[in-house]
């Protein structure tokens, strides 16, 4: 029995008392109570959001604003703040803030958690809730001239829209005009080799130094949430997660959806399928970290020939293994609710042999990387001590994954909120406390070793698994219709960090609201913090070390 199966019940039991405790703490601030499957929900007045969140953060220790979900109902708008703790991931609370339909104004949470800045901008952009006191409430994903809020109820998708292409103004021009100041505005992106996709970084430099920087996103906002809300739980949603974090982290993303929907519909996954999931997901993590490594080296010293090619060589092997398993190189669509779609490929010995070969060669390959990358003086000069992200700042921006672990935050959902088969296996969470670009790189490289350890153990288990107990899928009804108004927020450790999904069921076979919490979205917010006042090449190195993928930032 894996932990996952027992979790929901245990948590609701604990949640009830926990909900009472927290309601007591907040006292009069709470005007109602809700139960979400993952956490107790406390309903707060829209003008007391900050009071409540400050109290929860400072007195109850909820220091991680994981996600902000906004939604329009027939009679109200609602923002949900999903809070949890870096030290204890299973202790969660949802702060529910309803606002009126005709004047949807809600107090901003930005002074409490800086990550709320972007999350609320997104909520404003897509749903249309206005956040009072927000420092910069503009559209974030859609063009600024967009009309209407696409995830609102009365949005007409057929109305024409206009997008502009104009020069961006230098925000500091006025302040720095005169003799001593000499600032220059630089557009980095959206088409630029160092931005890893279509990110646009609005940069103002004074000489070589970055004085102002703002990531401008939305160039790959392809309506993933709308797509998922249009699909049925059972089969139609699963192909989309592959395309969020498309750097071969597909199975990790699929797991996020699988975990959320399985907990929502109360489906148990057979142990054998969990082991296959764990193994294949870790293979994906290796593939993803390889590309992070290759492109980081490419960014830092423009080395297209050596390290990039080395990383791609190893990635190619992983992709071959995954192709044998799933039939696809990138968009696997391999998980199903309640298990996986098919068993390991025959002949199994050959498949295991292939994985073993890869794992046997991996230490040598990593040795090579360490020779060429981490012990290289040029790279060290570029990365050690640059792009510093102190742990408190990282926490307030909701950074997770290798970015958080590179800042000394010991936080990994595979261990802290265990799912799959991870808690049965022997592996370590990698933490580096250098807080700089170099630490983040090291974390990724060492995580590859840990992933290899996990895969090794999974292969051993799978090899000895009795033939008549190879149960790859639970019995799942053909049509899933979770009960109306069940709400759940669940996360897994994706390649870039905490990948969460919030689903509200509306009684049909499609989700009423499907919200994706992308780790890159939160991680990218730390870029100005790491880069302002630094040299512009260090900004490029910091951006590379964040390892963002725009498909997931914009969704």
């Amino acid at each position, binding site marked *: 029995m894996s932990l996952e199966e027992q979790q929901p019940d245990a948590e609701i039991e604990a949640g009830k008392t926990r909900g009472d405790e927290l309601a007591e703490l907040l006292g009069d601030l709470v005007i109602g109570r809700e139960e979400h499957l993952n956490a107790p929900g406390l309903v707060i007045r829209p003008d007391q959001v900050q009071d409540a969140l400050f109290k929860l953060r400072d007195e109850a220790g909820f220091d991680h604003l994981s996600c902000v979900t906004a939604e329009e109902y027939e009679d109200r708008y609602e923002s949900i703040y999903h809070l949890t703790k870096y030290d204890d991931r299973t202790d969660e609370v949802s702060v529910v803030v309803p606002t009126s339909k005709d004047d949807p104004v809600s107090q901003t949470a930005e002074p409490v958690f800086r990550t709320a800045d972007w999350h609320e901008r997104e909520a404003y952009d897509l749903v249309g809730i206005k956040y009072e006191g927000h420092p910069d409430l503009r559209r974030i994903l859609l063009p600024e001239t967009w009309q209407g809020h696409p995830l609102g109820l009365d949005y007409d998708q057929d109305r*024409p829209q206009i*997008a502009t*292409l104009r020069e961006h103004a230098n925000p500091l021009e006025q302040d720095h005009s005169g003799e001593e100041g000499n600032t220059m505005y630089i557009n980095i992106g959206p088409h630029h080799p160092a931005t890893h996709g279509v990110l646009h970084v609005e940069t103002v430099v004074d000489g070589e130094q970055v004085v102002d920087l703002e990531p401008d996103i939305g160039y790959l906002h392809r309506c993933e949430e709308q797509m998922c809300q249009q699909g049925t739980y059972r089969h139609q949603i699963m192909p989309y997660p592959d395309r969020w974090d498309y750097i071969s982290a597909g199975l990790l993303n699929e797991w996020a959806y699988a975990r959320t929907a399985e907990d929502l519909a109360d489906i148990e996954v057979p142990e054998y399928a969990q082991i296959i999931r764990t193994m294949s997901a870790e293979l994906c993590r290796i593939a993803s970290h390889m590309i992070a490594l290759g492109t980081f080296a490419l960014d830092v010293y423009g080395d297209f020939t050596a390290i990039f090619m080395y990383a791609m060589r190893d990635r190619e092997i992983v992709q071959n293994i995954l192709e044998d398993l799933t039939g696809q190189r*990138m968009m696997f669509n391999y998980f199903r609710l309640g298990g996986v779609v098919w068993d390991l490929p025959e002949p199994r010995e050959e498949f295991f042999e292939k994985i073993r070969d890869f794992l046997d060669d991996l230490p040598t390959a990593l040795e090579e990387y360490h020779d060429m990358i981490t012990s290289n003086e040029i790279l060290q000069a570029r990365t050690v001590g640059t792009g510093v992200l102190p742990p408190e700042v990282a926490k307030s921006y909701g950074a997770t994954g290798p970015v958080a672990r590179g800042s000394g935050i010991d936080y990994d959902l595979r261990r802290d909120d265990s799912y799959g088969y991870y808690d049965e296996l022997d592996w370590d969470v990698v933490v580096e406390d250098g807080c700089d670009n170099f630490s983040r790189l090291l974390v990724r490289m060492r995580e590859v070793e840990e992933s290899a350890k996990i895969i090794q153990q999974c292969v051993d288990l799978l090899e000895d698994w009795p033939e008549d107990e190879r149960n790859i899928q639970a019995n799942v009804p053909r049509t899933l219709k979770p009960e109306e108004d069940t709400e759940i927020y669940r996360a897994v450790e994706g390649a870039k960090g905490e990948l969460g999904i919030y689903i509200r069921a509306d009684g049909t076979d499609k989700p009423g609201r499907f919200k994706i919490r992308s780790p890159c979205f939160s991680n990218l917010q730390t870029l100005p913090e790491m880069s302002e006042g630094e040299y512009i090449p260090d900004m490029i190195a910091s951006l590379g070390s964040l390892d963002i993928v725009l498909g997931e930032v914009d969704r």
Partner: protein
Amino acid sequence: MSSEQKPFVTDDSQVLTETRDARMAGADDRFNSKLREAFGSSPFILTKFDKFMNWVRGSSMFMLQFGIACCSIEMMHTYAIKHDLDRFAAGVPRASPRQADVIIVPGTIVSKFAPRMKRVYDQMPEPKFVVGMGSCTISGGPFQEGYNVIKGAEEVIPVDIHIPGCPPRPEALIYGIAKLQERIANGESSPVTVKPYELEQFGDLPRDEIVDKLAEQIDEDDLVMRYNWADSP
């Protein structure tokens, strides 16, 4: 260009850019060299020389290093070891559009990005070629129903080769590029058959509800792209 001369164009009131004009009017100068102009009408040498030039063009293509979405990962694999697009004389990724001959459009194009992509395309020197990689550049792919997704790259720029797949395998991309080289060597270019979204000045848009609404936010001479979602395929 007017619709009297080209009756098969249904609505060209909004698409008057130079690229399109040149192609629709038959004066497609992608293969029109300075040499051809200089030599005037002596056909023999020119035919042969053009053929030679076309072969050269196809055999030395500089690709634009242009990543959009998932397909760009497979595109990177195509450039990297194992598949090594360089073997086919088409593997030098250039970061600047001004140095590139071919743009591979690898991914979903959304409303905010289309004007930028158009600008990048406009910055490439003629003759230039476009490879649409993946289903998103054909029709919007899995995201076709999205409120923000352009239903194919051909709404914005003319595409020479479409490669289906989500994403296409590197082998498929190589095949597509080989096909493009073949076409270039034969001196073929693709006709522009669909009505693209174009960059135009805001002041030139016909007045309607949305234009009136945005009149305060956008200057008359700002470049804009107008999306008529209802007319998209």
